């Protein structure tokens, strides 16, 4: 059983296009996250939702818009894609927000390539 799943696994698209990445967790968790891993493998939080409420919104271009239709899903929509958006995007979830007590479980990642 896949705990945190992401679709698609690979996404190749051209500059200027709009694309979405979907994330679903079947763990019954309340909190979900999006991370970006750049070409140097550096990982940074982008967004976090708790019970469908946005709680982390890092310094991310407003071309990126997360959407949480329900607690089990957190999708990432990206408008007007740019070359610099090429990265691996990871979704994660946790039972609650405090990582001291609640582990974040990561999905397998979506490799986005913008040409």
């Amino acid at each position, binding site marked *: 059983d896949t705990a*945190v799943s992401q679709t698609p696994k690979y996404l190749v698209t051209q500059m200027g296009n709009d694309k979405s990445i979907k994330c679903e967790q079947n763990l019954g968790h309340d*909190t979900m*996250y999006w991370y970006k891993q750049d070409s*140097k*493998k*550096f*990982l*940074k*939080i982008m967004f*976090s939702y*708790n019970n469908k409420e946005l*709680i*982390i919104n890092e310094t991310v271009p407003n071309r990126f818009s997360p959407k949480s239709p329900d607690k089990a899903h957190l999708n990432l929509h990206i408008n007007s894609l740019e070359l610099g958006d090429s990265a691996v995007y*990871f979704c*994660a979830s*946790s039972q*609650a*927000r*405090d*990582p*001291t*007590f*609640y*582990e*974040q479980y*990561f*999905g*397998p*990642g979506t490799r986005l390539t913008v040409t």
Partner: protein
Amino acid sequence: AQSVTQLDSHVSVSEGTPVLLRCNYSSSYSPSLFWYVQHPNKGLQLLLKYTSAATLVKGINGFEAEFKKSETSFHLTKPSAHMSDAAEYFCVVSDPSGNTGKLIFGQGTTLQVKP
């Protein structure tokens, strides 16, 4: 502000020899610290965490880490490396401000295990 610095971008060991991956942290709070592992083309998995209990923390797959406040370090060790340990390792600190669950990642250390 919280931050972590991984002192080696790449570590190479022979199978059966000890592993040492070094991490220093900076935190204005009593930190919660974590080590995550990322195998090639996979998501991240929590290896172990320090949450102000015992300073020597044992994790999965024979890894352990020691929290040393005087040295602001949280180095990851394993007595004997296996080929399957080859992966990217991230030292992570949590940001407790705002109770958002935000994790701050180090730059990563690539562990190579030679036969």
